[in-house]
């Protein structure tokens, strides 16, 4: 292939991409759809008894106008029972369909909408708008930002890869030393043992704890509360057997494991499933000591 063709192709490609960028920029500015959407919202606003301001962090690396982070404010009509997630959906469906956030179950089990609301980690779907208000109930303003200490992908969406990697690092799967011989025979487990791991098994991987943790923010390799809690779930399960437990303790007491935790309790405070994370970490520290393993 001659260089000339390549150059020409390259020039064409560049032109194409400038052209495309311009087209996209124009589109981003076009108001028609937005106006239509806003019109729909206006009737709602007129009818509503109470309207509050939803202030949302915005950022999109792909659109030149949106590369610089900013806040947008959307007036939202308040309805009884409204959650922060409802308010975000309202803003998206009535003002700007490019407003981006993760959500799915609307009932605090999928863990996808952990957000930084008025300065604290919350699940959007589990947080009532009235609970953020003054004594009158409905707040004047709600500020929604992506989870801190995580890279922002776009608007309220953060990159969860690091969180998933830390989860993976504790070998997060059940691994019994031996199984009952009969195919239809279950492993026996006492009620007490099940109770012991019950809370740790509630984690929905929302990432709120990790985002609230100062140590995790400063030490990228720290396993973090969610992953350690995951390890707790298996290490404390009597069905796995002693050998496996030993291996699990070795994982969590490595340099960036349990000993990094400074018992600040921020993870426990924000966990939407009320998992006693700090307690679990402390208990694993004690187990590690009992096992006479090394201190870092």
């Amino acid at each position, binding site marked *: 292939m001659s260089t000339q063709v390549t150059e020409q192709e390259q020039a064409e490609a560049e032109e194409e991409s400038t052209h495309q960028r311009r087209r996209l920029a124009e589109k981003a500015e076009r108001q028609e759809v937005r106006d*239509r959407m806003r019109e729909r919202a206006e009737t709602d606003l007129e009818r509503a008894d109470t309207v509050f301001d939803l202030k949302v962090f915005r950022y999109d690396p792909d659109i030149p106008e949106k590369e610089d982070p900013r806040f947008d404010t959307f007036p939202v009509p308040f309805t009884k029972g409204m959650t922060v997630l*409802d308010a975000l959906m309202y803003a998206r469906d009535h003002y700007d369909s490019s407003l981006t956030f993760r959500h799915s179950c609307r009932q605090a089990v999928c863990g996808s909408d952990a957000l930084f609301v008025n300065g604290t980690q919350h699940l959007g779907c589990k947080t*009532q708008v009235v609970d953020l208000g003054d004594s009158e109930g409905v707040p004047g303003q709600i500020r929604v930002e992506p989870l801190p200490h995580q890279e922002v992908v776009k608007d309220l969406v953060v990159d969860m890869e690091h969180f998933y990697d830390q989860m993976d690092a504790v070998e997060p*799967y059940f691994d019994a030393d031996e199984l009952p011989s009969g195919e239809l025979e279950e492993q026996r487990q006492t009620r007490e043992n099940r109770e012991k791991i019950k809370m740790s*098994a509630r984690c929905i991987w929302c990432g709120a704890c990790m985002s609230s943790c100062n140590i995790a923010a400063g030490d990228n390799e720290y396993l973090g509360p969610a992953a350690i809690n995951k390890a707790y779930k298996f290490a404390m399960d009597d069905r796995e057997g002693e050998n496996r437990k030993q291996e699990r303790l070795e994982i969590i007491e490595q340099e960036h494991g349990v000993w990094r935790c400074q018992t600040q309790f921020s993870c426990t405070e924000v966990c939407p499933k009320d998992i006693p994370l700090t307690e679990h970490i402390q208990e694993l520290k004690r187990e590690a000591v009992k096992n006479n393993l090394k201190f870092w």
Partner: protein
Amino acid sequence: MYEHDVIVVGAGGAGLRAAIAAHEEGADVALVSKLHPVRSHTGAAEGGINAALRDGDDWTDHAYDTMKGSDYLGDAPAIETLCETSPEEVIQLEHWGMPFSREDDGRVSQRPFGGLSFPRTTYAGAETGHHLLHTMYEQVVKRGIKVYDEFYVMDLAVTDEADPEDRSCHGCVAYDIKNGEIVGFEASDGVILATGGDGQAFDHTTNAVANTGDGPAMAYRAGVPVEDMEFVQFHPTTLPSTGVLISEGVRGEGGILYNAEGERFMFEYGYANNAGELASRDVVSRAELTEVNEGRGVDDEYVYLDMRHLGDERILDRLENILHLAEDFEGVDGLVEPMPVKPGQHYHMGGIETNEHGETCVSGLYAAGECACVSVHGSNRLGGNALPELIVFGARAGYHAAGRDYGEALIETGPSAAIEQEDDLGAPVEPGALGPTDDDVAADGGEKAADGGQLTGTTETVHAAVERQRQRVERLKERDGRNHAEIRQKLQKAMTRWVNVFREEEGLKKALEVIKECREEYQDVAVSDPSGTYNTDLIHTIETRNLIDTAETIALGALARDEFRGAHWRAEHQERKDDEWLKHTMVQWNEGTPELYYTDVILEGAEKTYEPKVRSY
């Protein structure tokens, strides 16, 4: 282009189980899912999972209960497979470490559930689905199965022979949500659809926002019939503002339903003089809506469920979870005030037609879980029977796709199984296609070119599918037009108003007219966010198209079936008509125009033949 032996679309309970099975059978398998696996809706299931595990119980009793619960619209070979295999699958989950609730002797706990002749519902607290989902995902991680998460599957790569039974599936096309790339997935052994429910066709549902019927819509447009779509289950106690489920446990403990006038309407108006609040789901749902329709609802929308008289102690002991739900999602303190509730869409019995091996009539295309209809639930699903379906049929689809030989299937699939054709339905509008000039039906390019015989190769089929989706996305992003949310809302409202718990001929016809309007309006739909990064506007727009297609099949099937069976109630037809209607409704996509035909229900099992009886409990 990514290449694997088996591609599983969707990573809820059904998808994860399918992937593990295919992997065990030696296949190189990948999971492609629009949500990270642990975000799948299976995590929301509360009650439990049915399996005949104990002495005194037998899988044949489970099969009998299921057939009866289905109102004799389930297929015996599927039901027998479900009930016979469920115990080993449930024990398998236990061996994988699932934290089931325990008895004193250390064995897994079981409890009674509606419609079951034995307490065979195995559970893990009130979070059975959460534990099931996480346990299976852990096994996927353990096996190192490749997961493409946040990849939205837009279409299937299916050849275009004229007869769907001659077509084959070679992969799918996905949109990489993080960077906007459109990529082909080639599958040498098969594609398994496990995309879950389509509750978002209704404006009030217990289902997740991601449950948009993508799988059924894609399979349907690729030529696979959808089966028994009119059978939608509604749950009587959901919170009005979100649709969050308030478990039947509240009524079980003695909770009372009131209307706005403070009347205990279940008795006062004679809806269920014996069972009262404890009548079956469909009866209570109908009663609540009648109250609202006759002006005795609260705020013209809901009724009250009151548990205050049970006393704080009892509530905190047995219904603590409900207090949290009412507080978190409705801002109501159940200890001091009654909870508002209304019926909501909950589960779809219908779906992609498959046989008991998970196969569809298009070779290489499988389906399992709530998106599929192997027909174990017939016209009504028993509580606790969806979760075993996921693992039993998810596993079978996975094994079969990876090469395990199950022998000849007893359930026939595809149009050649038809027993009769519905020629004149008396629909008020021509459903589907919008006219001779527009063979695109909804004009967003999400369409299969079924000209016949041009696409027969493997890679070529995937490439062509990728190209079509590329053009589709470009078109949606470039043009200006309507926002999908308006159309989606209109569709959802119409479905809830007319294709809900109550169904009347006139209403069903109105629904079809509105669906047609939605199709027309959708022709002008545009994505206003031009971004290539995490473009949810684009995804929701495509999902809305899928909802239009599935909603239409629901409304059509409901209009055609002029009888009252299971969850399907018709004002003008108040009896079950066994002579005429012991058959499955099939809807087939014929170049955009839905065609209705019927197949026989199989009441003959390996063990016995199930004779239809009156359903009373």
